[in-house]
């Protein structure tokens, strides 16, 4: 007996919420990137859940693409954090506020 979609959705909701909280509350840029990965994976889980529920492979294919794009995104994100650290000696986002009005 398959796991009902609603359970999976609740799980993905929780995962997404953890990601949001992580983005909003952590100062460390790397942790924020990791939290963003959590939210993305929550979305992937939604795709998987609906793919199973609707018996449709599109969702699974979509999530594979998403993981590939996420890999690129992380590469870029880490490169930004690395450049930031080299220039500012910090990875704490609240210390980098040159856009303050």
């Amino acid at each position, binding site marked *: 007996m398959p796991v009902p979609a609603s359970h999976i959705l609740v799980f993905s909701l929780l995962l997404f919420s953890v990601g*949001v909280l992580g*983005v*909003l*509350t952590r100062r460390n840029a790397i942790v924020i990137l990791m939290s963003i990965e959590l939210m993305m994976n929550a979305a992937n889980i939604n795709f998987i859940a609906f793919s199973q529920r609707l018996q449709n492979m599109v969702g699974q294919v979509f999530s594979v693409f998403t993981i590939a794009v996420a890999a690129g995104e992380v590469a870029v994100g880490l490169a930004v954090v690395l450049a930031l650290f080299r220039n500012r000696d910090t990875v704490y*986002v*609240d210390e*980098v*506020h*040159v*856009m*303050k*009005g």
Partner: protein
Amino acid sequence: MTLIGLLWTVPLFPVAGFLLNGLLGARFFPKKAVWVIACGAVLLSFLVSLGAVVALRDVGSLTPSPGAAVDARAHRVTLTLGSWMPMGRSADGSELSVDWSFALDPLSAVMLLVVTGVGFLIHVYSIGYMGHEPHPVFARFFAYLNLFMAMMLTLVLGASLPVVFVGWEGVGLCSYLLIGFYYDRMFDEKTRMSCADAGRKAFITNRIGDVGFILGMLLLFVNAGTLDIQGILAKTGTLGPGVCTAAALLLFFGACGKSAQIPLYVWLPDAMAGPTPVSALIHAATMVTAGVYVTCRMAPLYLKSPGAMLAVAVVGALTALFAASIGLAQNDIKKVLAYSTVSQLGYMMLAAGVGAFSAAIFHLMTHAFFKALLFLAAGSVIHAMSGEQDIRKMGGLDRHIPWTHATFVIATLAIAGIPPLAGFFSKDEILWAAFNQRPLGLLLWLVGAGTAGLTAFYMWRLYVLVFRGEERFDDEVRHHLHESPRSMIVPLAVLAVLAIAGGWVGIPEVAGFRNLLAGYLAPVLGAGEEAARAAPHAPLFEVVMMIVSTVIAAFGLVLGWVFYERRPEARVRLAESARGLYRLMVNKYYVDELYGKIVLAPYYALCRAAAWFDQWVVDGVVNAAGYVTLATSYTSVGFDTYVVDGLVNLAGYIVRGFSWVFRKVQTGIVQTYATAMIFGIFVLVSAYLLARGH
């Protein structure tokens, strides 16, 4: 036309001399060249005048030419040099114009010869008198003298009133310049009057008279329609008696200023501030007689108005007596002569007023001789006394300066009216004419005769105090005492001869001679004199009157001799017993003080009021306009600053306020933005869901 055609050069020679000496003299010419030019110019004028006057004798044979009209009946030649003020056509269609025109007739001929002749002698005299002056002053003096000669000759020759007026004002200007010649010197210590002040006084007093002259001229122009003298005189018959009287009195007022008559005589005594040759030339021989000359020139006009004639006679007689009485008590040698001049001018006016115009011109001529001589001799005395003019500090000079002494005696006897010197004949003719005047004849004669006695008295007083008695000067002056140089003595001698013989041209007919001068002047003045003559000739009576006036003159001389030489203590007693009168005379009847009170004081008050008005009202209005503008400007600036700029700034402040608020949102911290975004999504989704009805 012989030399008459060259008449216009007569005033031009002195003008040339004035320009040469005035512009170049002080800088480029040596002193000798300056006086050669100045005297040469006047000598040329004299020679041309002489030639013209000689040519005028054959006036009948002269042919008229363009610009030179000949009037054989009046012995007149009129030269027109050009139009001066063309004025278009008059109402009756004739051409109106004031021309530069000169007229030579017996009247102007006499004046011409007196002015150029005496003027030349005085120029020569000035060479010696001004010889010790340094150069710029020397050249300036001769330049002014020449300018004066030019103006005087213009006055004498002018054939229309405006031309005469040019000369009239020109001599006034020269008189001013020469009275104030030593403009940095004090003239009268007592009244703090400088020489420049004296010049100004003369000029302003003359200006007052000139107003009368101008008004008279305009009145004649309006009524006669021309300014040409002969044109006006030809029309006097058509003018009303009121116009004639008014015009004559106005012209006479001008003559009063120039010829120093009451009430405008006050300037002449102070004109003595000028150098002595100036006093001789301008203030004795020539300029001051211009009023008499113009009065005689306008004789037909005066004869139309018995009232004006009477006024002239009365003013002349009063001036004669009044000035003579002041002359009794003066102590400045030149002041005595100045009051004497005023008195003699009064005589001339008296003659003109009673219609004896040729007698007036006769006395004018003889007076020019003997009064110029007196002044020049006085100048020689002053020169010898190192500049001293107070006769109380002279005396006994006859031994030191014999030539001056001799000529002074001659002139004194001539002015006193002792026959057969010049003054006797002219004065006697005037007295005789005055006696025949109706209705005031006897009174005028008494005043004239009394004046003659006074004249003899004060002149002998002057002579005694200067030349006789003990010497009252100090050793310093005695050391420098010297007879004047020849250039001064020669003119004195020539004038002395004229003062003796000058009267012989006018010996009255009763003595068995012909009155040459009256005969010569008859073409111009004869008709008027006939008209004015009230009494027929009475030869015996005339001789009696002659003897009487001679006795009066002799009596005056003897009285002067008694009081000042023989018994000086009697004079002191007399002065003591009539102390009030004596004080009055010494102080010149306080006329200057009176004028100061009634004329100058109100005038100064008016000036102060005008100054006050100017300062407070006129300036006040101007300043008020300024203040109003200023206040408007402040208001305008305030409106601009606070209202217009305020609105503009307000817009800016509002924008800035919003900016301030919105800027706070931009924290630069990514998590704030993320929070806002999530909150926003929450709100939007909630709203969507609520709208859907869940």
